[in-house]
């Protein structure tokens, strides 16, 4: 992608007012879909994404089941009103590819061998999209999986970095995605220090590439803290309040 106009002003402010290493506002709610085994809602900048996890549960049809581990099924889907122009509800090629890379980002974290012959379904529904929805989807999915009590080696935190006006910036928004020089989403297992998703869309030389990865990982670590706080609040929130009361 070759930029046609400047996206960072003379004060170092980006199109949405952020500086180059600033993350958008992120809020995560846990357990918001009553019927699901685990669920989360994330607001990541203007992105609004809801994730439901059903599992472990029976595989239908039965012949799709694996004897030694569980089947992980992942669907990334956008509601028709989530984008600038209305999107047809039928799955697009982009959604199919994103569903696949998200599944491959989550798989290394889940202990699939603990659930042979079963399935774990992760449904990521984008209600409003504004750049970086696959990362936001992974962040919410990881929280939803933990909420569902599924055995995991680690959480998965995802964030993108990119190149805008020849500078490496953290967390690309929609405009920067469409008009900027490069977009690199990453998914990261924070305790194990493993990368489970890496894509690049754009042009980067070696130095820029290294800087981009470092930046993205820093972003992932910030997201990890937000994921942890959300889970702690839901599960142990009132315990902490009660402890304070009893003191």
């Amino acid at each position, binding site marked *: 992608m070759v930029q046609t106009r400047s996206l960072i002003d003379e004060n170092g402010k980006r199109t949405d007012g952020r500086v180059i290493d600033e993350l958008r506002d992120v809020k995560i709610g846990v357990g918001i879909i009553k019927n699901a085994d*685990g669920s989360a809602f994330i607001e990541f900048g203007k992105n609004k994404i809801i994730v439901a996890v059903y599992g472990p549960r*029976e595989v239908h049809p039965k012949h799709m089941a694996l004897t030694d581990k569980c089947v992980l099924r992942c669907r990334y889907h956008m509601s028709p009103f989530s984008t600038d122009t209305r999107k047809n509800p039928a799955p697009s090629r982009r959604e199919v590819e994103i569903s696949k890379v998200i599944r491959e980002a989550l798989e290394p974290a889940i*202990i699939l061998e603990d*659930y*042979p012959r*079963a399935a774990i379904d992760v449904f990521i529904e984008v209600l409003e999209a504004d750049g970086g929805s696959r990362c936001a989807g992974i962040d919410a999915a990881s929280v939803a999986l933990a909420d569902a009590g599924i055995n995991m*080696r680690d959480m998965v935190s995802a964030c993108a970095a990119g190149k805008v006006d020849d500078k490496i910036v953290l967390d690309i928004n929609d405009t920067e995605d469409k008009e900027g020089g490069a977009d690199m989403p990453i998914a990261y297992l924070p305790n194990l220090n493993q990368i489970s998703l890496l894509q690049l869309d754009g042009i980067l030389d070696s130095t820029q590439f290294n800087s981009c990865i470092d930046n993205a990982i820093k972003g992932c670590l910030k997201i990890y803290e937000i994921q942890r706080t959300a889970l702690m609040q839901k599960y142990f929130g009132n*315990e902490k309040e*009660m402890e304070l009361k*009893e003191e």
Partner: protein
Amino acid sequence: MQEIKRKFVIPGDKIIEGNIRPLGNALKSGDGIIATRIGIAEAGRDGAKVIPLSGVYLPRVNDIVIGKIKDHSSLSWDVDINSCFTAHLPAQDVFGRDFSPARDDMGRQLSTGDVIISRIATFDRTRDPVLSIQDKDLGKIPHGVILKISATRVPRLIGKRGSMIQTIEQATGTRITIGQNGIIVVSGRTDDGLNLAIDAIHMVEEEAHTSNLTQRIKQLLNVQEPTQPESDTKANNQEDDSNNVLNNGNENVEDKEHGLE
């Protein structure tokens, strides 16, 4: 050596460093043991584990579970036990070894929607759980109010040697049948008793991970605490609200909580 008593953990969190044995919902990783689920971590000389606070019920052999009949094939009933697999109750278990589909009417014994309390007779990584209702006190449950809680809260609801559940039953004049899979049936003489028991059950479910839960339940039920010398009362409370808060009453839970071993 270091002991961990009540550490709140999320997946990936390190519980303890060192060469300790990983027990339920814990994994050896790097130089220590990590948690694989959200819950309360404990570690000592015997090992490190996490008492989970959420998760679908995974079948275990000899568990007593309450299920509902979904359907039947010619040789067994399909039973929903609120788990990730459908369980099967063989017709032979009910009719005897000389069961004949031509002569014995399965639908007459147990029909779709019937609620049964049963034991998991067999289950392993290669097949669906098989149930049995042959033992005493097992079989169809004809009356009562049925409710569902998270299976992870069942040990706390039962309490150490049944203390929590008995407290609720006695205070409300109800009989409470609990399945390890989180399904519960409550029967009682009065509507008030029934509703109070149900409220108590919901309170235990929401606050299972907190300390002093027994006190708050007794308050809810208006149970008078018997007057006792200080030291005895302390020992009592410690027994009920010990650090093994969620493990009480279910001694064989230890190693079986991790996956489907």
